[in-house]
């Protein structure tokens, strides 16, 4: 097959993680090729809810989430574009005393790990931050220094900056087979072969293609979280809001539209790259939104959509080196919360590629946790 390109690094997948890894590798002076089977940002990275959230992270994710957050707050320095990033509190609302008690425990856990970003809100403070919240809400948990951004613009900005630094993107190009020739990886695609010393697998819901070729299959499930957006409403909410006892993610954009998600799932078909919405589920999303914010009862839905995302059985991603082959690194399976992690994880990947190691605590994310029985439980235990 004809040679398509040769580089130091080939990245499979043009989502935010692929673009971010490519950009950070280029910043370290490496030559990089990205292959993307559709178009950059076509999947999860271009259509997600845009939540930039440290709040409520799995303990293993907190360190990398905190690191990524620092990059978000000066995102324009990294990619020459503000990515539509708006600092805003992220708040998880408690609808019952029992939920508030659970949030209080959670706050203690995070403090115990040495982090200060999550704070418990009593009812008065919750009202102050969310004047439109329903009467029955008794308190909440907030991370004041979080925010949200515009997903497609973000991913595109990473691509553009990477391109400016010499990264070559091959879109509509599907990675197929992987073979090794001495120190060179040969990645065949439907448009030719790419040769590189290092391969980075950022294939999202499709990442198992590469993992399986390496003899370390990973149980990535393709899921389709669904979203709704309303027509413009008068301004009533400044924070990104979630619920504790039921799925909800909720924010009002600067233009007045309200974006509602929360993880209720439609039908994902990774073979055809399609999703179907399930309105039977979305009606529950609509109900929850109206119950937490009564003003929403008068809102109008203008559009719904879903995106294909890779989910791991333990809801945390795979990040780190292959356990079977040298010079292959994975970053996939972000389980519906990987947008916020994009800037940070890309930097960690580049560190791994360039130096072979990283200071970041990524052991819990090893792909090894899915190989063989014993290692699984050990690897998924939260790091304290």
């Amino acid at each position, binding site marked *: 097959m004809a040679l398509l390109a040769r580089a130091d690094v080939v990245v499979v997948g043009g989502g935010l993680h692929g673009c971010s890894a490519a950009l950070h590798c280029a910043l370290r002076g490496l030559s990089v090729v990205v292959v993307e089977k559709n178009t950059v940002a076509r999947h999860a990275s271009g259509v997600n809810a845009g939540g930039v959230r440290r709040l409520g992270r799995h303990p293993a994710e907190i360190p990398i989430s905190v690191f990524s957050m620092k990059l978000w707050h000066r995102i324009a320095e990294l990619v020459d574009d503000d990515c539509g990033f708006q600092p805003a509190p992220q708040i998880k609302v408690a609808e019952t005393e029992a939920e508030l008690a659970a949030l209080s425990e959670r706050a203690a856990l995070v403090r115990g790990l040495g982090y200060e970003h999550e704070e418990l809100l009593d009812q008065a403070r919750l009202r102050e931050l969310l004047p439109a919240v329903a009467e029955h809400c008794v308190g909440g948990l907030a991370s004041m220094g979080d925010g949200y951004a515009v997903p497609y613009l973000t991913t595109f900005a990473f691509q553009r900056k990477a391109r400016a630094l010499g990264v070559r993107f091959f879109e509509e190009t599907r990675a197929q087979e992987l073979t090794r020739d001495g120190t060179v990886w040969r990645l065949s695609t439907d448009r030719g072969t790419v040769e590189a010393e290092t391969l980075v697998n950022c294939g999202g819901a499709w990442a198992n293609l590469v993992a399986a070729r390496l003899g370390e299959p990973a149980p990535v499930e393709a899921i389709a979280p669904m979203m709704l957006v309303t027509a413009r409403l008068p301004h009533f909410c400044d924070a990104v809001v979630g619920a504790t006892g039921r*799925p909800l993610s909720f924010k009002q954009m600067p233009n007045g539209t309200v974006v509602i998600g929360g993880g209720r799932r439609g039908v994902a078909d990774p073979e055809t790259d399609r999703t179907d919405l399930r309105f039977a589920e979305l009606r529950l999303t609509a109900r929850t939104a109206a119950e937490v914010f009564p003003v929403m009862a008068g809102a109008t839905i203008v559009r719904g959509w879903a995106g294909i995302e890779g989910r791991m059985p333990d809801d945390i991603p795979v990040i780190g080196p292959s356990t079977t082959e040298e010079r292959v690194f994975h970053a996939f399976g972000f389980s519906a919360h990987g947008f916020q992690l994009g800037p940070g994880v890309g930097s960690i990947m580049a560190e791994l590629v360039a130096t072979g190691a990283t200071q970041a605590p990524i052991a819990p994310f090893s792909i090894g946790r899915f190989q063989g029985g014993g290692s699984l439980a050990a690897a998924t235990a939260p790091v304290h």
Partner: protein
Amino acid sequence: MRCDLAVIGAGPAGLAAATRAAEAGLAVELFDEQPAPGGQIYRAIETVPAPRRALLGPDYAAGAALAAAFRASGAGYRPGALVWNVDSQLNVDFSQDGRSRQCRARAVVVATGAIERPTPLPGWTLPGVTTAGALQILLKAQGLVPAEGVVLAGSGPLLLLLAEQLTRAGAAPRAIVETVPRGRLSAAARHLPAALRAPGYLAKGLAMLRALKRAGVPFHRGAEALAIEGADHAEALSFTAGGRRQRIESRLIALHQGVVPNQQMTRLLRCEHRWSDGQRCFLPVVDDWFESSVEKVFVAGDGAGIGGAKSAALRGRLAALGALRRLGAGEDKRLAGEAAALRGALDKDGAVRPLLEALYAPSAQILAPADDTLICRCEEVTAGALRKAVALGCPGPNQAKSFLRCGMGPCQGRLCGLAVSEVIAAERGEPQQTIDYYRIRPPLKPLPLAELAAFDVGDDAGDEAGDDQDAA
């Protein structure tokens, strides 16, 4: 709620499809947004008073028989029902009387017809600017005609038909400003012999032009560089014709540049579409039973490509036969025989189309709007802003949504979709087919959140699970 065949749209195509399928014994449900059958062309056909019916002419009156046959067919009918989603399992989600419900169908006929092509030109979003189609609706449904002389501007048979109908109703337009370029007629003339095979059309067209001339309606031909003047309301239309700039005062201006298939539902269903150079728009790909690339989804009427009312009814029947065949509800040989006759009639009726398409191709001005002309009215995006996004790297309509929010407003891109695809294609120097169109997401029209919250899906209720605490 279940049915064998769900038909969406009660114009000639939908009425004919529903009638034929019900006569064959299928359980049919016909959904339509309007309160009564007829679609755009035969709007209010069952209730129109005799004088108005006479004024609208014999082609309009022909719709009465279609509506009557439908009423007698035993097909289920849901007037005032807005279909806001059809999923890949052919569940039809619709809103009627403020309540949303679901009907599970075994096959679907999409007969959602045509919409007027968007006409982005300077001032087209000012109050006082409307479309020829909108004026005709007022005339058919309520017998209303403009109090002040309207200026009709653009091109297409509907423009002339409306002019004639208004004239007969005693509200002759102040002027017709036609954008068909000089020389187009002779270029289109090569389609004339073929067009003569379609009975009646040309004679009717010429009669229409003569009637307008007799009535003394000023007719400006070969107009270019149209602009609607006015600060907060239309005051005049200016244009260049016959080598000089002209200006006609009016506070009511109706634009028209032909009609194109309403693609929203076929796009939602992810039917394959192909660009048509002749019709200058995307058409769903259909086979000779009018079945789309999605099995058991049929597209009849103008939604499958502009063919007019007669062809629409023929296509509707053909689609019904296709559905009968697919559902195993008819004897193959008899269906094939009936279909062959319908195809013959379609071929004949469609013979006039190449001439009309060549003659009334949309004007260059609206295909490449000036930089400061609004292209997406919902989100107020100009053609220039779109070109800038393309220069930055925006590769297609779906990405333009993220760059500019164009197509993200309440109309879901219905009004800007084609113009956006055209501008991006021209800017990138790629064919429209490559640039493609917006992906269309449900609901097709805005849906009250409270109505969604009370959505009745029958036996397939969603469970309370839903467990990624996230996607925050």
